[in-house]
């Protein structure tokens, strides 16, 4: 039994279909905008890739909360790692064979891989999670767009040679891997429980996504210093806004918020 409690279908103020549309369309638009705008106007605009990644991260986090509330038994982190594991293979494959259609091919491949793993999990290994097939396909696709989005923001292009030179050969792909995985798994892992609310969980997804964006900004400084500035500034702005929102939701959902003050001094204790 997962820490989420009894298996149940979660209540979602925003329906899953809307989230899929937001993540898929927003993510792909971001990736393509990051690629073409940096082609036309220079790498300054590569931060659009990270914005696409944020859309995908929010979608992934929403899917994680839907599937994990059934109690998958293995802990929330495992599903985030699975998302990014499939994401790496599918993203690099799509970009390597697809050229300009790379991101779309990557998403299709990821969806198929995710469906297969979901089917194996539910039918062969008898996990008994009703939405396992579609959810695994969704998180795989979200993980793929996350990888491509962050990589595009770092390299200023999603052509495989550019990604290899600027993200993979110098090892930044490890950062992309873990920051993408954490961003997808952390929102629900941090908010799970009987009082979990969709808006609170997703606000953490925005926080994590903006951290990924700031990291992408730091890395893209190696390609061109000017392009680091907008990515870092916009990332910081999203982070501040999302964190303020999150704090508001915490105060709304908490029974009471009290300050504990500083630690008592030794004289006060005795």
């Amino acid at each position: 039994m997962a820490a989420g409690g009894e298996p149940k279908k979660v209540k979602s103020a925003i329906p899953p279909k809307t989230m899929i549309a937001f993540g898929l369309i927003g993510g792909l638009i971001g990736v393509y905008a990051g690629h073409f705008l940096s082609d036309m106007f220079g790498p300054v605009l590569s931060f659009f890739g990270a914005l696409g990644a944020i859309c995908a991260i929010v979608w992934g986090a929403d899917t994680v909360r839907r599937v994990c509330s059934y109690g998958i038994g293995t802990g929330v982190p495992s599903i985030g790692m699975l998302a990014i594991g499939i994401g790496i293979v599918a993203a690099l494959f799509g970009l390597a064979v697809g050229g300009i259609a790379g991101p779309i091919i990557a998403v299709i491949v990821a969806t198929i891989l995710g469906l297969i793993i979901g089917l194996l999990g539910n039918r062969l290994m008898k996990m008994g999670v009703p939405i396992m097939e579609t959810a695994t396909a969704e998180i795989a696709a979200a993980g793929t767009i996350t990888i491509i989005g962050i990589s595009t923001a770092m390299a200023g292009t999603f052509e495989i040679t550019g990604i290899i030179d600027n993200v993979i050969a110098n090892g930044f792909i490890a950062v992309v891997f873990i920051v993408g995985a954490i961003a997808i798994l952390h929102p629900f892992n941090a908010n799970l429980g009987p009082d979990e609310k969709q808006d609170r969980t997703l606000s953490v997804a925005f926080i994590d996504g903006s951290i990924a964006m700031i990291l992408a900004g730091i890395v893209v400084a190696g390609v061109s210093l000017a392009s680091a500035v907008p990515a870092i500034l916009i990332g910081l702005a999203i982070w501040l806004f999302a964190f303020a929102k999150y704090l508001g939701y915490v105060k709304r959902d908490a029974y009471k918020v009290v300050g504990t003050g500083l630690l008592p001094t030794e004289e006060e204790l005795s």
Partner: protein
Amino acid sequence: MIDYVGLMADNLLYLLLIVVGGLLVAIGVHFVPVGGAPAAMGQATGVGTGTVQLAAGAGLTGLVTAAAVMRVADDMLLVIASGMVGAMIMIGSTMLVGNFMYIYGVGVTPASGKVKYDPITKDRQDLYLSQGTEGHGVPTSCYISGIIGGGLGGLGGAMVYFALLSVTNATTALNVIGLASILAVAIFFINAVIASYNIGGTTEGFIDPKFKRVPKAIVASIVVTFLSAIMSIIIIGGI
């Protein structure tokens, strides 16, 4: 355009190695005693964290060890063996320190909740269980099981890494190292999660009744690793 058929024909051996490596990772996870959140509170046998984290810790250490040895040696067996030993040392020290915590910190005796007698030491287990728990700590059988699991995981991870690194390609060594390592990590994680799904997140190793489910994980792992391996070879061979 990439010559897919030729690429696969050239790298058939490596394709096989990747599938076997992924399979070993999936089997290895079944040996590692993980207790998840209950174990973190001393209420279940095993190390108190998730399967994936534990397998990743050991497997990635194995990968790093293999990669370090690869810098100075070109012998496939030596590289793979060092990956195996690296992972075994890592999982061994994790379980040892975990046991220190349970024994001296929590104050419980390592005992299994699944078997009455430890199959290796023949010690009675059920007398040492705290009421309402399913065991605690890492008893001898589980420890040995964990070492085997770490070894299999490291062996598999190192095999995948070595195979990916050896795929025929037209690019520089530095690019291939980056691609091979991140793809090896991805394949490692996919297999670790599949195995973790199969055992439902917690296990005591080979003494656990859930261990009988291994064949299901083998089928699932072969299917998924085969697909991932084909894609990985196309990625590395195609550039």
